[in-house]
């Protein structure tokens, strides 16, 4: 009964979304505020309705209604309560529902704002968000319905249908299959919602951009209106990526955080265009330039958001992430095609209206460097996109599948990321307008001196890998430039306002949060780069089968195998856990307990590495469950990952930088209200 209720809510919401599209279009062309208001209210209703469907499914999951195919496939009786809740997005149908829920929340929030000044944009914002909602609702209703139930047909077959096939009787399995063990991790519990928040939030600036194109508003109002949405989207997408990395590091047991898997790349691609967009809109805000380019970037970002969801959910590319395969691929493909072609056609239609008189006299001006930054992001995007789709092209043309793996991406993207880091150092010192190499050179020499010293010290200390030397030099350069920027600003305030250092720093950041928050984000990126350089260039690994009392040596550490224990856990899994002692130079450092958990219900194992983390390195030990393990001897794979913790520290710094950059300024708010 509840299942039918949930399905009914979907159908009603779908009709409501379609109605809001129609009402908004009629309202726009008839210049009828009443129709537009009706469309807005219809759109607002979608959020409580989808929330109702979400609550219904959550209730069915928690109470173990295994007669539902979805509940049966992602939960079991022995799962703890919180995992039954997170099972909501543990499968294909549920994750699409989560996408829908977040999308409706964002769409509702945006339609609740004051629209007096931008009334003509409202109908088209409603149309774009409602069309996106209707598309995902149609997928849920026709292909990935989480409310389908089990039935036993007259031929004794078990089938999953929404409504009873002729002569079939309902079936309720005694227990479910349980959540995929890989998803029973805190990182995976919050990774999908965070990533999806990033995805759906980018729909909002896209909706405003399309509304601006349709209504012919060629000013930068849509950018100003959606600036904070874009930042929020970017924050969540970035956090989603980092959480995914952390999950891979903790759960997948390969000692790394990023495998250039097609599905990882599909989440990275909208981040690349989104980051390029964040930089590029500054040129439009400051100098009114590149309106067409900004439109193209947000259109691309939206297309890549849908493309990313398509790759993750359609099963078109098999990978560790593609847990489910379904028939929704062609629908996605058609939707991406139609929205992309329509958006580009609109852009071409308005091309001349968006043309601006470009004045750019120097290759060293900030806008020129921002353009170069955009080019580099586009370069990385091309590498990623091509690497992801090439195996499909190869299969189509030659019938032979190929793998495009990490060596390709690292070789192609490494120099581009390096160039981006160099720009991160140079661009803040350039000025809008007419910077020259002389003015830029004068600004650069001071931070360059400590950078050169750092490089020399590293070389003397034994860093002879040229990629590492270049990488760490760039890291040092960005850090010194950023600190130099803070110092110059503070010194200026101290002179003029007679403030002490801390007050001057606070006031400086308070009055220009976007700039200094941006600098903090740059700092966080290079701190993350320290971790990436460390693990990518200096990771070492060894594997050995040890008898009790034997040890492995790696990077100065000695790891001794002490014992092995196997025991059942309260949630039904069987835990096999080794105890190891860690020594360095004969000194005992502590114990590690790598383990693997076996889930009998789903017959799946999960490897949990034992990790000793310091700022200098991680010692990452895996009990190799795929080899023969016994109490007397067990195989261990050990990774030594230098500096990797800086990757996670950098991500925390990133959140702080973002908060500084995006925190609403009281003065600004007041000014906005006056405008």
């Amino acid at each position, binding site marked *: 009964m509840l299942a039918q209720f949930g399905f009914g809510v979907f159908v009603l919401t779908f009709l409501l979304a379609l109605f809001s599209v129609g009402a908004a279009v009629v309202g726009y062309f008839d210049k009828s505020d009443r129709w537009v208001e009706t469309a807005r209210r219809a759109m607002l209703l979608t959020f409580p309705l989808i929330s109702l469907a979400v609550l219904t499914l959550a209730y069915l999951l928690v109470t173990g209604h295994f007669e539902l195919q979805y509940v049966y496939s992602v939960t079991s009786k022995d799962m703890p309560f919180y995992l039954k809740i997170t099972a909501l997005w543990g499968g294909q149908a549920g994750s699409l529902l989560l996408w829908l829920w977040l999308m409706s929340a964002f769409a509702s929030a945006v339609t609740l704002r004051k629209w007096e000044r931008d009334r003509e944009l409202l109908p088209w914002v409603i149309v774009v968000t409602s069309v996106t909602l209707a598309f995902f609702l149609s997928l849920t209703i026709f292909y990935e319905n989480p409310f389908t139930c089990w039935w036993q047909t007259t031929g004794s077959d078990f089938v999953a249908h929404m409504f009873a096939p002729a002569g079939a009787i309902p079936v309720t399995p005694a227990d479910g299959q349980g959540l995929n063990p890989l998803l029973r991790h805190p990182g995976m519990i919050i990774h999908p919602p965070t990533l999806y928040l990033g995805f759906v939030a980018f729909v909002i600036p896209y909706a405003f951009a399309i509304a601006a194109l349709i209504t012919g508003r060629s000013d930068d109002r849509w950018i100003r209106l959606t600036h904070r949405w874009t930042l929020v989207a970017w924050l969540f997408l970035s956090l989603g990526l980092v959480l995914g990395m952390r999950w891979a590091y903790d759960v997948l047991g390969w000692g790394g955080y990023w495998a250039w898997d097609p599905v990882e790349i599909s989440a990275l691609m909208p981040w690349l265009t989104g980051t390029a967009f964040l930089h590029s809109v500054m040129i439009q805000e400051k100098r009114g330039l590149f309106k067409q380019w900004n439109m193209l970037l947000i259109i691309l970002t939206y297309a890549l958001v849908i493309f990313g969801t398509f790759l993750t959910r359609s099963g078109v590319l098999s990978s560790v992430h593609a847990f489910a395969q379904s028939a929704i691929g062609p629908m996605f493909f058609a939707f991406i095609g139609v929205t992309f072609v329509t958006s580009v056609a609109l852009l071409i239609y308005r091309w001349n209206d968006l043309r601006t008189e470009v004045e*750019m006299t120097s290759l060293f001006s900030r806008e020129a460097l921002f353009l170069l930054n955009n080019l580099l992001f586009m370069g990385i995007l091309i590498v990623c996109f*091509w690497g992801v789709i090439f195996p499909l*092209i190869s299969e189509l043309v030659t019938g032979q599948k190929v793998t495009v793996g990490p060596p390709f991406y690292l070789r192609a993207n490494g120099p581009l990321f390096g160039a981006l880091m160099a720009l991160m150092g140079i661009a803040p010192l350039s000025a809008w307008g007419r910077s020259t190499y002389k003015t830029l050179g004068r600004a650069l020499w001071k931070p360059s001196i400590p950078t050169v010293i750092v490089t020399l010290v590293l070389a003397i200390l034994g860093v002879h890998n040229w990629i590492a030397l270049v990488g760490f030099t760039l890291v040092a350069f960005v850090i010194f430039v950023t600190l130099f920027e803070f110092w*110059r600003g503070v010194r200026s305030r101290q002179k003029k306002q007679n403030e002490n250092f801390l007050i001057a720093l606070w006031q400086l950041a308070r009055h220009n949060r976007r700039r200094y928050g941006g600098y903090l984000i740059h700092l966080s990126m290079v701190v993350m780069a320290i971790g990436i350089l460390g693990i990518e260039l200096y990771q070492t690994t060894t594997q050995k089968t040890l008898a009790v009392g034997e040890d492995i040596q790696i990077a100065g550490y000695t790891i001794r195998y002490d014992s092995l224990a196997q025991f059942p856990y309260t949630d039904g899994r069987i835990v096999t856990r080794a105890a190891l002692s860690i020594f360095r130079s004969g000194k005992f450092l502590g114990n590690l307990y790598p383990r693997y958990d076996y889930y009998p219900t789903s017959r799946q194992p999960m490897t949990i590495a034992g990790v000793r983390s310091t700022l200098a390195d991680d010692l990452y030990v895996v009990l190799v469950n795929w080899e023969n393990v016994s109490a007397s001897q067990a195989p261990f794979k050990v990774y030594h990952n230098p500096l990797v913790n800086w990757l996670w520290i950098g991500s925390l710094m990133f959140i702080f930088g973002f908060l500084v950059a995006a925190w609403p300024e009281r003065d600004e708010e007041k000014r906005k209200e006056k405008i």
Partner: protein
Amino acid sequence: MKTRKIFLLTFYFFLFAAALIPAVAVSAQQPTPSDDEVNAIARQLYCPVCENTPLDVCPTTACHQWRELIRQMLAEGKSEAEIKQYFVDYYGARVLSEPPRTGINWLVYVVPPVAFLAGIYLLFRAFLTWKRLAKEPITGADHSSALRSGTEPAEGSGIAADDEYIARLEEELKKRK
């Protein structure tokens, strides 16, 4: 005569067999390749079953057997290239971490740099056009004259550049207030 011939043949056979014994014994005594030696090759190969998973970390039974096959081939004295070729012959080019540089696969290596170079070319050409336009008399609205006047290249010392920067910074901060 015939007996002598048989005797000689038997003698040579045993002599040959005796000569082989040390070689066989040495071969049998060769140490089994270590896990690290096996993984050094396995990490360059991708599991033909679980896509996008390197062979050295793939937990399936099939991959365990393939790792043992690598160990066996190493013990037989096969080189890294020979082992990789064996897997390519049996399972196709998908087991390699990158497409082999043949035929249509060249596209994967050529398209990104060509597209990127085309981007640089287009940007540079556009920049030259903008520079030419900027030299013509300015008629439109000036968005940031204050900023640009502050960033006019000033000949002189680094201190002058600093002052210039501070002036620009203060101008911006004033605007923000």
